C-alpha cells in the first residue's frame, strides 16, 4: 500500500510530463504556422530528433558516470590528496569553458556528427559528476570512517559499506546536474550535424519560425525535467535512509 503510494508519487509526474510533450508535438504538427515549418514539424521527424537527443544524452551521461565516479573516488583517497586538489581546481576552471567551445574544439579533431557530439557531451558532463563524487567522499565525517576502520573493516569494505553509501546523495546531485546540463547542451549538437532537438531551435531562429523554436525548446525543457525526476526516483532507491 505504501509502496503503491510512492510509486504513484514517482510515476504520475512522469506521465504528466510525457503527456505535456505529446500535447506540444500534437499541437504544432496540427498548427505548424506555414509550409516552411510544416516540412520539419511531422511526427516522424520530431520523433527522430527526440530519439537522437535522448540517445546522445543517455550515452554521454552513462559514460560520464562510468568514468567520473571511479575517478572521483580514486582522487578522494587520502594519499592522492594533491591530485584531488589539482583535479578539483582543473575541473572548476574547465567548467567555465562554454559548451559550444568544447563542441567546436572537438569538431576540429574528431570531425562532425553524432559521435563527436556524444564525446563532447561526455567530456562536459564528466566535470560535475567528478566534482560531486570528490566532494561527496570528502564530506563523509572522518569520525565515522575512523570508527569503521577501528572496528576492523578493510579499506575496501569501508569504501563500499560506509563512504559510498554516505556520499551517494552528493554524487547523485552531481549526476542530476550533469544530465540536466547535458539535455540543454545537446541542443548545440545540431551545429555539427548531430541532430537532436537543437535542429528545431536553430532552424526556428534562422528562419524566424517561432513554432519550431517553441517546439524544440519546450521539448528539451520537458526532457530535462523528466530526466531529473527519473534520477530523483533512482536516488531515493539507492539513498541510505
Amino acid at each position, binding site marked *: 500500500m505504501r509502496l503503491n503510494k510512492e510509486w504513484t508519487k514517482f510515476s504520475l509526474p512522469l506521465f504528466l510530463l510525457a503527456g505535456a510533450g505529446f500535447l506540444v508535438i500534437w499541437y504544432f504538427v496540427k498548427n505548424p504556422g506555414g*509550409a*516552411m*515549418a510544416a*516540412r*520539419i514539424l511531422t511526427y516522424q521527424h520530431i520523433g527522430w530528433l527526440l530519439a537522437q537527443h535522448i540517445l546522445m544524452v543517455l550515452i554521454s551521461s552513462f*559514460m560520464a*558516470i*562510468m*568514468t567520473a*565516479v*571511479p575517478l572521483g573516488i580514486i582522487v578522494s583517497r587520502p594519499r592522492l590528496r594533491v591530485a584531488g586538489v589539482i583535479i578539483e581546481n582543473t575541473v572548476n576552471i574547465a567548467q567555465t569553458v562554454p559548451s559550444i567551445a568544447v563542441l567546436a574544439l*572537438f*569538431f*576540429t*579533431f*574528431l*570531425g*562532425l*556528427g553524432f*559521435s*563527436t557530439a*556524444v*564525446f563532447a557531451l*561526455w567530456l562536459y558532463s564528466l566535470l560535475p559528476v567528478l566534482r560531486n563524487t570528490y566532494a561527496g567522499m570528502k564530506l563523509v565525517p572522518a569520525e565515522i570512517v575512523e570508527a569503521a576502520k577501528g572496528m576492523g573493516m578493510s579499506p575496501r569494505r569501508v*569504501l*563500499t*559499506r560506509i563512504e*559510498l553509501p554516505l556520499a551517494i546523495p552528493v554524487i547523485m546531485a552531481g549526476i542530476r546536474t550533469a544530465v540536466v546540463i547535458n539535455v540543454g547542451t545537446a541542443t548545440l549538437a*545540431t*551545429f*555539427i*550535424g548531430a*541532430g537532436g532537438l537543437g*535542429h528545431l531551435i*536553430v*532552424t526556428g531562429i*534562422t*528562419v524566424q519560425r517561432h513554432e519550431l523554436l517553441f517546439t524544440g525548446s519546450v521539448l528539451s525543457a520537458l526532457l530535462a525535467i523528466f530526466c531529473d525526476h527519473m534520477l530523483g526516483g533512482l536516488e531515493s532507491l*539507492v539513498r541510505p535512509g
Partner: protein
Amino acid sequence: MARKIPWKLVLVIGIVFSMGFLAAGCGGGSTQTGAGQISKWVFATDHEFSVRPDGLPELQKAYDFQFDDIRVMDLGVTYGALKDGEVPVAMGFATDGRIGAYGLVNLEDDKHFFPVYNPAPVVRKEVLDKYPELEEILKKISSRLDTETMIDLNGQVDVEGKEVTDVAKEWLTEEGLLSETPPSEKKGKIGVGSKEFTEQLLLGAMTVQLLENNGFEVEDKTGLAGTNVVRQALETGEIDLYWEYTGTAWLAHLGHEEPITDSQEAFQKVKEEDLAKNNLVWLDYADFDNTYTLMMRKEDADALGIKTISDLARVIKED
C-alpha cells in the same frame, strides 16, 4: 538492507567502455573511399537552407532529383565536412575563401535556380554628380573581379590569415590600378562604407585605396555591422558609397518577395527602382555572384564529370 553492488566490476566496465568510446570518437567516419567512389549521396546544409522555400526543397524539385540523406549543421561547418569526406556534396556561399583553399568546386547553377547576388558600388546621386569620374574609377575594380578571383582573395584573408588591407593593396598593384604618381591636387571628401564580413571588407579596402590613389580624401567607414546599418548610413548621407548585392537590395531594401535569378535583369530592376525611389545610383556590377552554391570535392567532381547541378542530379539518379 545491504545491496550487493559489484563495485570492482562496475569500475572495470566503466573504464573499458570509456576507453573504447574514446577510441571510437577519435576514429571519425567517412562516406567515401576513393575519388568518385560515393556510396551514399549525403548533403550537408545549414538549417536555413534546409527549409527555405528557395532552398533545398525547391532546388531538388527544380532539378528533379533527391539526395539520399541530408545532414543539417552550422553554415561554417559544411565546408570542413565536405573537405574531410564526411559528405560528398555540401551547400555554401559561392565566393567563400575555403572553396579554393580546401580544393572544392562550385557546381554551376545551370537552371538559374538561385537568386543572384552580384555586388555593385551604390553611390548617392549628388556625390556622383559632383564627381562623375567615380564611375570610371570603380569600374576598374568591378570589371576585374570574377568568382575565382574573389574566392582566392577571400581565402587569403580567411584561410591564410593575411590582413584585408594588404590583400587589397596587393591585388590593386598586381592589376596595375595604382599609379606611381598620384595626382597632387586634392579632390573632395568621400565616405566609403562596407558590411563586416571578409568580402565586403576587401571591396571596401580596394575602394578606399583606389580612391585615395586618385586624389580623393577618403573617410574610411568600412566594417559597419549589418546590411541595414550600412544602407541607412548611405541613405542619411553618413557615407557616400558602398558595395551592395543586387539580390539583397531587391529582397531586403526594396522589399520584393520574388527573387530574380538573372544577373542582368536583377541589376536593371534594382538600378531603376533605387534611383527613382532613393536617389541612389548603381554603378556597373562585378561578375561574381555571392549566392548559395552547391559544392563538391574537385577530385570527385572531375572523376564523375560533374560540372553543373544538372550533372549532379543525373549522376545521383543513375546511382
